[in-house]
C-alpha cells in the first residue's frame, strides 16, 4: 500500500490499495468533501509523484443517484478532464449538495519528460466502491480504478 507521507497521523489523506490488474484509490478526511478531494489527490499520485503546477483551473459538475455512484462519477470527471485536456491536476476542491457535486481542479498540461507519468486511468469502477462515515464523524471514499 502506498500512502501520502504528509498525511500520516493527520485527519485527512489518501492511500492506494492493491488490486490484481488495476489499483485502488482511497481518500479520508473530516468531511465527505475532504474524502473526495483526497481520493482525487491519490488518483494523481497513482500517475506521477513529480510536482505539478496548479496553473490552470477547470470546473466539473457531477450528479448521481447515490453518494457512492457520485464518488465514481467525480473520479470519472477528473479522468475525463485529464484525458481531453492533456492535463495533470495538483489541487482539488469539492462542494456537495445532496447527490450533486461541483468540483474545481487546478493543474497544468502534462509534460512527459518532467512528470514521467505512469499508468493512464481509464475509468473508476464500482469494485470496492465504498463511501462511509466512521463513528468519529470522519469520512472515507474508495474504489478500484481501471488503468
Amino acid at each position, binding site marked *: 500500500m502506498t500512502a501520502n507521507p504528509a498525511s500520516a497521523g493527520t485527519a485527512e489523506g489518501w492511500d492506494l490499495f492493491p488490486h*490484481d*490488474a488495476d489499483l485502488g484509490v482511497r481518500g479520508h478526511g473530516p468531511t465527505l468533501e475532504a474524502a473526495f478531494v483526497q481520493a482525487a489527490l491519490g488518483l494523481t499520485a497513482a500517475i506521477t509523484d513529480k510536482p505539478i503546477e496548479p496553473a490552470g483551473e477547470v470546473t466539473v459538475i457531477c450528479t448521481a*443517484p447515490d453518494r457512492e455512484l457520485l464518488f465514481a462519477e467525480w473520479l470519472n470527471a477528473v479522468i475525463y478532464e485529464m484525458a481531453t485536456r492533456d492535463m495533470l491536476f495538483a489541487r482539488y476542491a469539492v462542494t456537495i449538495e445532496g447527490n450533486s457535486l461541483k468540483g474545481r481542479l487546478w493543474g497544468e498540461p502534462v509534460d512527459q519528460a518532467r512528470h514521467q507519468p505512469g499508468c493512464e486511468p481509464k475509468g473508476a469502477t464500482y469494485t470496492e466502491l465504498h463511501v462511509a462515515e466512521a463513528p468519529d464523524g470522519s469520512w472515507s471514499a474508495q474504489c478500484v480504478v481501471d488503468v
Partner: protein
Amino acid sequence: MDPTRFTKVDAYTWRVEPFGDMRVPAVIYADEALIEGMDDKVFVQATNVATLPGIVGASYAMPDAHWGYGFPIGGVAAFDPETGVISAGGVGFDISCGVRSMVTGLNVADVEAVKPALAEALFAAIPAGIGSRSEITLSDDEMDAMLAGGAAWAVAQGWGDARDLERIEEDGCMAGAKPDAVSDKAKKRQRREMGTLGSGNHYLEVQIVDTIYDETVAAAYGLVPGEVVITIHCGSRGLGHQIGTEFLKEMVVTAKDAGIDLPDRELACAPIRSEVGQRYLGAMRAGTNCALANREILGHFARRVVADFFPAADVSLLFDVSHNTCKVEEHIVDGERRTLYVHRKGATRAFGPGAPSLPDALRPVGQPVLIGGSMGTGSYVLAGAETSEEKSFASACHGAGRAMSRHAALKQWSGRQIQDDLRERGILIKSPSTRGIAEEAPGAYKDVDAVVETAEKAGLARRVARMRPLICIKG
C-alpha cells in the same frame, strides 16, 4: 485460492456446482498451482457471473484469471438472445483491447544490425504514454465513419493494408455499430487519440521467434525460427473507456428497473432485447471498430518505419484478436446449435480448425490466439483447439496476468535499472516514463509459460510458437 473449494474434474478443470442464486456452474481451467495462486475474488466473481439472467452452460475462467471488476479478468460467459443480458462491466472499459502480430520475413541478424536506430525510430513513430498524440485528428464526420468502418476505414484512409482485413476478427469491421449511440463526450475523448498506444500494459514489440511447438501450424502462420515479428497490444483508447464509464452508470440504474438483482454493481447489465441493451451493443460495436482501426493505424506506422530500414520487407498481418468483447456467435449447447452473446473479458476467442469465419490459409489449422507476456520474458502464438468449442465456447487465455500490484512494483524496481538489465539481455526498452517501466517490470507478472501450457493441457488452445522481445515500446 483454496483448491478444496472446487470439485476437481480433472487435473486442469475445477468446477463449482450452483449454489445460492447461481443459474449455472462456474468452471475454472487451471492446474493446481495456478488455482492456489489466484485471488479468492476470482471465485467470488466467477460465481457472481453465474447468477446473471440468461447465462448458458457455465461461467468460465481461463488459466490466467485474476481479480477484475465485475467479471474476473479471464472470464467467459454466454447469454441467450431472448432471456440474457449484455453487461458493460463484462466487456470492460477498454472495449476490444487486443493484440495483433505481423510477420516481417526479416532475419534476426538483419534487425540486430540496426537495433538501436530501429528502436529510436519506432519510439518516434509510435505515440506512447499519457499526453502523446499522433498526426491524426478526426472531424465529426470522420469520427462517425471510423466508428462504422473499423480497420476497413483505416485502410481506405491510407493507414493500412487491404490484405490485413481478412486476418482481423470480423474482417476488420464489426457489423451493427451505431455511431449515434456513442456520446459526444466519448467522441471528444477520442478525437486526438487515433493512432496512439496508451500506457499501462500496452506495448509495441519487435520479437524473435525462438521456439516452434507445432511446425505444421507455424508454417501456415508464416512463423519461422529466427525471424522477426512485430506485435502490438492496445485497444479503443479514450472512446472505449468513456463508453464503458457511461453505460456502467446507466445500467446500474436500469438493471434495477428490469428486475435484475445484481450481486455486484460492477456487473451492471441490461436485457439484450431492451432499449439500453441494444443501444449499448451499438456503442460497444462502434468502440470495437475504434480499436480495430487503432491497431491497423499503429501497424501502418510500424510498417513505415520498417520500410525506411528494409525497403524490400513485406510486413504482413498474421492475425488481430480482441480480448475484451461481446460477440454474437453460434455454439453447440447440449447438442443443439444456438446463437449466443459471448462475453470475453480478458479472454481470447479461439476457434478451432474448420471455423467458417477464418480465412482460407488459416481455416485448416485454426485461429491464431495471441498471448502477451511481459517485456522481459516472452509471448506466445497458440492455435484454437478442436476441443475449445466444447470446453469454453471456443475461448482461451489472453496473457500472463499480474503477480504484483503496480505500487508494489514501483517500490521494488527502478525503471532505469530494468532498462539497463534488459539491455544486457539484448532487449531495448523505449518509454517516455521510467515510472511506467517500473510498474510493468517483468517480475511483476506471472509465469506466462505456465499459463499457456495449462491452456494447452486443458484443451483450450495448442502452442505454436514462442517469441522473445528484442525491442519494446511502452507508454
